[in-house]
């Protein structure tokens, strides 16, 4: 009766969730597709295990409840059964091997660019999380965007991930799984969109007050549209260090576009201190330490500035 209850609930939830879209199981690129396939493959085995246990459980409870056997029935003394115990050790081991093989294969496959498009050079995009926004740099195209991405379809993208401050996680569920962004470290993640469309990306790892709104949009478009957009973006105002340092302050901001990237001043994958120094009004130039005193006096001013800019 319990398993019936659980099963009917399972169905009810399935029906209900039909209205809301299961993004993860509706992949729009080869990375997400491999993951969705792995998930569906494992769900099959899991349902089998659940079914076996639930059926056994229900049968035993129905058959051996006291109301049926009567109060005089005295259960036999059974200490165990070596054969049975070997069976339910070996079968799970086999199931795990069957699950582990594709898991390991997929883990390694995801470290490379998707196979179908591996003849194309991946587009490199540096994705940097800063409380509470996303900065995207296209070093080859020499453009930088804030809180939005444009990518061509059917083209592998190599994201180089880093954080200017708290640890975030870069996640576009329609295109594939997430990976952490960390200060002073660089991680790499291949993603690709197979369909033109607008996808939502976000920070999935808790970063404090503004975490919920730390989101961005991804526009996947045809190669031509993408080229057009790149050219347009290259005409955008130049990114100055002053402007970039404003982005380092805590807060949200609207979508922005610049030509040139911040990589000329700082690589957050190497430098964990940049954003903190900017916030403290300290010099961000490694060689110049004489500015320290002077800048600390400005401390309060810059805090005030940050308030204004971030709202």
């Amino acid at each position: 009766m319990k398993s019936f209850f659980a099963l009917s609930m399972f169905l009810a939830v399935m029906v209900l969730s039909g209205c809301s879209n299961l993004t993860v199981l509706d992949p729009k690129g080869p990375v997400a597709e491999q993951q969705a396939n792995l998930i569906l493959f494992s769900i099959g085995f899991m349902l089998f295990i659940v079914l076996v246990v639930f059926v056994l459980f229900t049968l035993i409870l129905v058959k051996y409840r006291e109301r049926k056997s009567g109060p005089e029935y005295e259960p036999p003394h059974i200490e165990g059964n070596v054969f049975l115990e070997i069976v339910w050790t070996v079968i799970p081991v086999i199931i795990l091997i069957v699950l582990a093989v594709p898991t390991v294969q997929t883990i390694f496959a995801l470290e490379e660019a998707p196979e179908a498009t591996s003849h194309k050079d991946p587009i490199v995009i540096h994705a940097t999380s800063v409380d509470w926004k996303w900065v995207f740099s296209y070093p080859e195209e020499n453009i930088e965007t804030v809180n939005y991405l444009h990518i061509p379809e059917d083209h592998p993208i190599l994201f180089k991930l880093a954080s200017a401050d708290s640890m975030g996680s870069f996640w576009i569920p329609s295109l594939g799984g997430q990976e952490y962004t960390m200060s002073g470290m660089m991680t790499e993640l291949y993603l690709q969109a197979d369909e033109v469309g607008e996808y939502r990306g976000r920070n999935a790892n808790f970063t404090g007050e503004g975490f919920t709104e730390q989101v961005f949009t991804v526009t996947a478009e045809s190669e031509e549209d993408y080229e057009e957009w790149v050219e347009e973006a290259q005409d955008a105002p130049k990114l100055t260090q002053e402007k970039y340092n404003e982005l380092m302050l805590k807060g949200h901001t609207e979508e922005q576009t610049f030509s040139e990237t911040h990589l000329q001043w700082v690589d957050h994958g190497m430098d964990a201190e940049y954003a903190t120094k900017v916030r403290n009004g300290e010099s961000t130039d490694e060689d110049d330490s004489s500015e320290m005193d002077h800048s600390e006096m400005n401390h309060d001013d810059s805090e005030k500035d940050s308030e204004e800019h971030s709202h």
Partner: protein
Amino acid sequence: MKLDEFFVTGDPLIYGADVSIALTLIGAIFVLTYFKKWKWLWTEWLTTVDHKKLGVMYIIAAVLMLFRGGVDALLMRAQLTVPDSSFLDANHYNEIFTTHGTIMIIFMAMPFLIGLINVVVPLQIGARDVAYPFLNAVSFWTFFMGAMLFNISFVIGGSPSAGWTSYVPLAGLELSPGVGQNYYLLGLQIAGIGTLLTGINFLVTILKMRVPSMKLMQMPMFTWSSLITMVIIIFAFPVLTVALALMTFDRLFGSHFFTMMDGGMPMLWANLFWIWGHPEVYIVILPAFGMFSEIISTFARKTLFGYKAMVYSMVVIAGLSFLVWVHHFFTMGAGGAVNSFFSITTMLIAVPTGVKIFNWLFTLYKGRIRFTTAMLWSLAFIPNFVIGGVTGVMLAMAAADYQYHNTYFLVAHFHYVLISGTVYACFAGLYFWYPKMFNHRLNERLGKWSFWIFVAGFNLCFFPMYFLGLAGMPRRIYTYGIGDGWMSLNVLATFGGVLMGIGFLILVYNIYYSFRYSPRETTGDPWDARTLEWSTPAPVPHYNFAHLPEAKGHDAFWIMKEEKKQGKAPEKKPYKPIHMPSYSGVPIIMSVFFFIAGFGMVFSWHWMSILGLIGVLATMVIRSFDYDKGFYVSVEEIEETEKKTTL
């Protein structure tokens, strides 16, 4: 510091809490004074070293913390029910999920289990007390003071808000400048002292204080699970102690272990945290496994199926628990080989756990199953835990985990294992051993109402969350948009959460109702159970056993009863005086000093922390020169007590 910075202000919910705290305190003081109970409270409870009373105090504290953590949970559910809700703001929500997680794991699950271990394990092994009764009281009081220190944060100074995992740099001074995170560090540090002492205490108790006739492989399964848990505690908790100390240095004294600046290593914290944190999961699940084993065996009226396999599977789980910590951050980009290794070790845990599930099922097979409330909780555990377990295997598959990580799929998984494992076990154990503790049973009718409502609510609350995760809802967001399409499942979850709250309230009412109306026990063995704790009379005398019992195998008490039926009555031996430890006020006073020192450190009031630490040291010195070696219970007193108790 200004007074309005010291007290948390500006939120009507907090003012409400202020008022209720003040009223509760005034009420408690009034009742104690009016009924002239202060002396009774001090001499019978606050200074006790009796494991049974300490266990009861642990459980009372845990139930209070369950209430606090549950209120936090319901506030979160209220906020998430509809999109764009403005019931809580981001900061308040962050504080609430941080305290919810920390309290439920550290100050609810662990003390509840340790409380039951305290009450039951010495009785199960035929001991008159634990190996170090004084230390046991220190354990309780440091836990209690740590919990209180953590809990006052929300009215004084502000709660921590960096999540129960407190990942740096977010939890570091640069990004969390308030005192909240200090409360987390010091509250856990002080409570951690108690846990580590418990680990040592019960390890020695179980190994050295058993009745001589009880072999290791004849110990009741709950005792076995406790023994293995204590070993995990002893290996895991020092890691937490060190990690907390390092972060405390970072925040209070400007060191750079985990900072972004000056070459600190933030990811080192994540590693240290989970090297403790993953074994911690098994610290709260293994005793639960032990309890289910006892209860299922008792109410199926059969000995446990595959006793040895049950023991070895727990040993394997304990070993593996130290080899899987990286699965909490597969997405750190550690590379294919690392992720593959930790995927496989994690999956392997499913094997010994599966063995246990089938052993429980076959304990029921050919049994005579009685559906008491304690048994219902234990039975509901099996299907629910299997759901939590198989989704755990899914999470263990690293390549897929990149999509589950940090989502409600994960939230659903760990609530399925922690609630249907640990919380069901706490409730099952409470119903089962309640007559041992309070000399009356809990009402079965109310118990079953509470059970069905809670279990239905639990599944309604957390099952939809698997789908929310697959729909891309990340954990720890304080609100979402209508366009996200997550509302219908969230409404369901909130409805389930409310049912769980009602189930809990019925349980609390049941405690009151049964205290008033339940018939008192006439035997020490209300369930026709199998292990030695049930051979003690009702109420259990403070020295537990007038004669040490004899264990002639697994299910020692069952064997005794069988022999009695065959007419082999045990011969009556004369009583001998029993040596017992004296009560002491030192543990509670020492822990108050720990509290003072911790509170001083939270606010960096170093005069206060030094004062507190001097106090701690002084109480240690006093204890060192305490030559009280305990006392003997006279034969007359034993005869008198044994006459009064029944059996």
